[in-house]
């Protein structure tokens, strides 16, 4: 027993020491990585704030717009019609000043940008300047959360179908290199140069205007069906065209990309060796092709999951789909900085977290990758 102890102790200590080293390495790596990602997020958000405000020029634009709007509102208000011009001018100026103060335009952008940044980083998304949520609230969080389900529905459905279908079709196609179907896909892959909203308009013309079998847009029939099943089916019906547009716009190119990707891995020496050894093709695919490509597939999938949070600006507009993409676009058009920053910070955090987690996932799925060793 004693000799056993003597023999085992250095091993345990070595193992413990290795574990400590590994933990220490991982913690150090995680800390540095998180810090660098945080700094990246801070820089990204601050740049977004400055770009959204055009370095301060937006202040001038907004002040001029306020002057115009208030002046027009007052000049058209019958209550002011017979008021003498001096009093009218005074009231107009008071109203303009009140609006300028409401929007904090009386403070320099430097101060406001610091507040925007702090609020964003602490996920205190604040209140919008102009946009209201559909329920009437100006809380940016409410505005975003209200639109999120429909964006997730549209983007989630389309991107997941696109990802899964193209991945498996590509894998299948990589086995049939040079076949008619393979060449057809290659021939059709340039169709992805057409943006999804082009397909959207085409589909609307065909299926809504001509065939009259699907709706022009929106998310649900009007009037809204009374029962849950009816509503679900109605939403599903409205989902078909926008989702199909998004899928079709990337479908062939995506297959082409994955198929080429799989083909490259299929021609590796170890795959040829496996084939020469007479291993079944299914085993070869699973062990020798899919496994080494897993980090890339996971990365692609993870980024896809983030993408579905961003919405599709023009496609949502074409289909009157009340998603995040449209609200972001409206916010940009109105220079509604809190909403722009709100949507951006969520995306930035999601991206940073994903990038951070992917490093660990790579290490888990690929034995060649070790965290914290020379940057791998």
């Amino acid at each position, binding site marked *: 027993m004693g000799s056993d102890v003597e023999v085992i102790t250095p091993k345990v200590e070595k193992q413990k020491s290795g574990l400590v080293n590994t933990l220490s390495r991982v913690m150090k790596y995680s800390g540095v990585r998180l810090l660098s990602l945080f700094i990246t997020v801070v820089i990204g958000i601050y740049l977004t704030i400055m770009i959204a405000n055009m370095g301060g020029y937006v202040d001038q634009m907004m002040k001029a717009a306020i002057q115009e*709007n208030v002046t027009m509102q007052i000049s058209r208000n019958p209550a002011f019609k017979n008021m003498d011009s001096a009093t009218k*001018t005074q009231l107009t100026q008071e109203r303009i000043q009140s609006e300028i103060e409401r929007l904090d335009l009386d403070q320099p952008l430097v101060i406001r940008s610091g507040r925007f940044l702090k609020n964003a980083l602490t996920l205190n998304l604040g209140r919008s300047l102009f946009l209201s949520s559909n329920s*009437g609230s100006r809380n940016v969080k409410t505005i975003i959360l209200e639109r999120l389900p429909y964006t997730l529905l549209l983007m989630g459905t389309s991107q997941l179908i696109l990802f899964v279908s193209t991945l498996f079709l590509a894998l299948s196609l990589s086995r049939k290199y040079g076949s008619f179907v393979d060449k057809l896909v290659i021939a059709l892959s340039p169709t992805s140069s057409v943006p999804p909203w082009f397909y959207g308009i085409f589909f609307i013309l065909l299926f809504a205007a001509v065939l009259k079998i699907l709706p022009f847009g929106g998310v649900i029939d009007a009037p809204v069906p009374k029962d849950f099943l009816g509503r679900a089916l109605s939403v599903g019906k409205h989902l078909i065209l926008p989702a199909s547009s998004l899928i079709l716009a990337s479908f062939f190119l995506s297959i082409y990309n994955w198929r080429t990707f799989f083909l490259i891995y299929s021609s590796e020496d170890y795959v040829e060796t496996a084939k020469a050894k007479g291993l079944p093709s299914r085993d070869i695919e699973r062990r020798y092709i899919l496994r080494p490509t897993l980090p890339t597939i996971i990365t692609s999938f993870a980024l896809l999951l983030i993408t579905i949070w961003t919405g599709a600006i023009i496609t949502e507009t074409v289909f009157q789909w*009340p998603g995040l993409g449209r609200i972001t676009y409206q916010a940009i058009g109105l220079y509604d900085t809190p909403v722009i920053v709100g949507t951006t910070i969520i995306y930035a955090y999601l991206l940073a977290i994903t990038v951070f987690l992917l490093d660990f996932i790579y290490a888990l799925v690929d034995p060649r990758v070790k965290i914290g060793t020379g940057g791998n």
Partner: protein
Amino acid sequence: MKRNTLMLLVGMVIIASMVLAACQPTPAPATEAPVVEEPVVEEPTMAPEEPEEPVVEEPTAEPTPEPVRTTRHGGWLDEIVISVVDSDSAITQIQAGAIDIFAAGLSSDALPEIEAAGLEYAQSNGLYYELTFNTYGPIFDQSTGKVNPFSESKAREALNWLIDRDYINREVYNGGALAKFWSIVTNMPDYTKVAETVRRLEAKYAYNPETAKAQMDEVMAGIEGVTIEDGKYMFGGEQVQLIFLIRNDSDKTRIPIGDYVANQLESIGFAVDRQYKTSSEASPIWVGGNVADGLWHLYTGAWSATIIDRDEGDNFEFYDTPQSAYGFSSTWQSFDSALGTPYGDLADKLAYNKFDTIEERNAALAEMLEMALTESFHVWIVDGKNFTPYREGVQVTYDLAAGVDGSQIWPYTIRLADQEGGQLKWGAPDLFVDPWNPIAGSNWAFDQAIGRATWGEAYMYDPHTGLIWPQRFDRAEITIKEGLPVGKTLDWVDLSFEPEIVVPEDAIVDWDAENQAFITAAEKFPDGTTALVKSVVYYPADLFETVKWHDGSPLDLGDFIYAWIIALDMGKEASPIYDEAYAPNAEAILANYKGFKILSENPLTIEAYSDTYQTDAEIDITTMWPSFSYGEAPWHILANAARADEAGELAFSADKADAKSTDTTSVEWFSQIGGPSLEILSTWLDTSIEEGYIPYADVLSAYITPEEAAARYENAKAFFAEYGHYNIGTGPYILSEVYLTEKVGTLIPFADHPDLSDKWARFGAPKVAAVELDGEGSVVLGGEFSFDVMVTFEGEAYPADEIKEVKGLLYDATGQIVKVIDGVLVEDGYYTITVPADVAASMEAGASKIEAVVVPYTVAIPSFVAFEFVTVK
């Protein structure tokens, strides 16, 4: 190899077909962004006015025909389903049956498509377009040192000849617009009143590039340092360059207008720097910037008029003088038209009707029109028109200025042809954009259009004349201080004049927010006061029995009084619901307000005094109906919202909600139709039931009993339980379903509406007169000669008592108007215009013309028709 080539070809063909297909209708990248330069004002406007003969009683303009009676109450339809539709696909969607009407005006360029699709349409005012000038100069001596010819009025005037308004109308608006020379709207009341002047000036300023070039040469030659070389204007060795801000957003028609004007300017010798900018990019330069900086010379402006404005006299002060509400802008400050100048003084007189007679006022307007073209602070281009398409089988009365969605009357008249009931699918560009509340809620046209179907009002705007008709009252008496140019048209109002109108001491003039009490005239004006207008409105005896709110609560006097109090209370700093952003509205109300008295509570009779007046007596009434700028509401909803406001949970205005919100607490903008407001309001209703709450109890306890209050609160809760919102009005429809995110709504008829559905059926199509003019094609000058004027509507003779005037403008061979001749009635629909011998003798021989102008009472739009003939000596 062949197969690969084939595949490649297939791929290319598919892409090409996609691109071609998609290139047809261009998608709008964003349709909802508020367009800052064209804010839509939806509230029923008290502006229309028309100076009339002060004491002349004119026949009532009853817009017949005899309505078909019905037993149905409220709206004609069983259901109106509202959804959001992209304007680019609106016509296609109507054709496909997805919607029945697209209730937002499409611009003139869509008219051919509407007609090709075989759709019906309503026509209304659209944007009107102009050029605004930087008048600083002639040298930007404090900045660029460049030349600005538009500092000279003659250079601006020359542009009237340089641009062909008819060409722009044809090429840009498919002929659907009207040429425009002034800020007043073409073919609307003021335009018609001075028809002789406008026709003479339109002829004078008709397209004539040679005149434009000659006058511009004269101006440029007068600017020190400017030379004219090979027809080009040179300064400092360089061609004079004009910076032209061309708007490239909104309806985008200002791009071709801007390009055309730039081409014309280049054709006479300028270089033009075309800067295409959006509203927000251009605004800091032309509105917010300093004209002395020399950053611009011209700008493509556009404005809108969504009411039939019966007195546009204030337009000249607004658009052309530093006294304008735009006086904060250096652009307006640099206009040479301040008070003390002939232009500024005349504009001021027109703005505030500083005249004793209508003739004096119209003469001033005619003079102003001439000066406006001479000075040309703006060069006006076209009055655009909007077109609201709907499918065959839909019937709706629309407002000539505001169209369908902007009209008050649409919910009362929209129906399926010859059918009671049925469903109508209403498409709009957006819906539920901002929270709905009557005091400071959504101002979006899309929201207001639907809201108006649910809200009532004491009167109804005549969609064809801009006058008003009683809807909830019987009649009114208006007393005007002698010497003011006020007239009347309709029988329901009695107009009289008195040398002095003394405000009684017990009239209620103001609100004491601190002590929660009325302020009487005796308290506010210890030395007594007078008013310019006294209005007495008589309501029917059964008003409080027949008119009910959507939740079943009967309308009562408490609604009237509460509405009056809160409209002032919110603007008083001592009030617990003070709203800084709202305060100017309260100040505006009080600026000319002289008090009211309840002469009788049941039947209700309200007497009111004011120092503000319109030239139409009909519009001078004060009804005190419980409606506000953004809708109608009963006291029991507003009172509980006010309690939530006081508690810091809700705010009526967005400004106050923002001001009261902090990083940790959020105050919601009050919405009657959705969001957190509903739960907050429900809680306050419960509290009010428990407490037996009566708002402004010191005053309103006289009008509201605790039992009545409790019953109302319960009614509101029951309404909320059924419909899920608190938008409670007295209008012909109830907002039945609200889906805020999905942007879908449903209206159902209000069965307890006091009026039969056909109450306003007499307002059918606008009775724009069809006019034929005939006479001898060749006339020997020397003796008198006549022309026949046939006036019809839909093939029937136009009744003489619906025609205000028929007159003829006689032009001689020089194109000048030599005489304005009144038409003589022969019989209904038939008039003659006779040229006296002495006038004929004075005419130049050659190709002459007579133009008949027919002005009906029943519609604001006059009819013009011309007849050309030859005169020989």
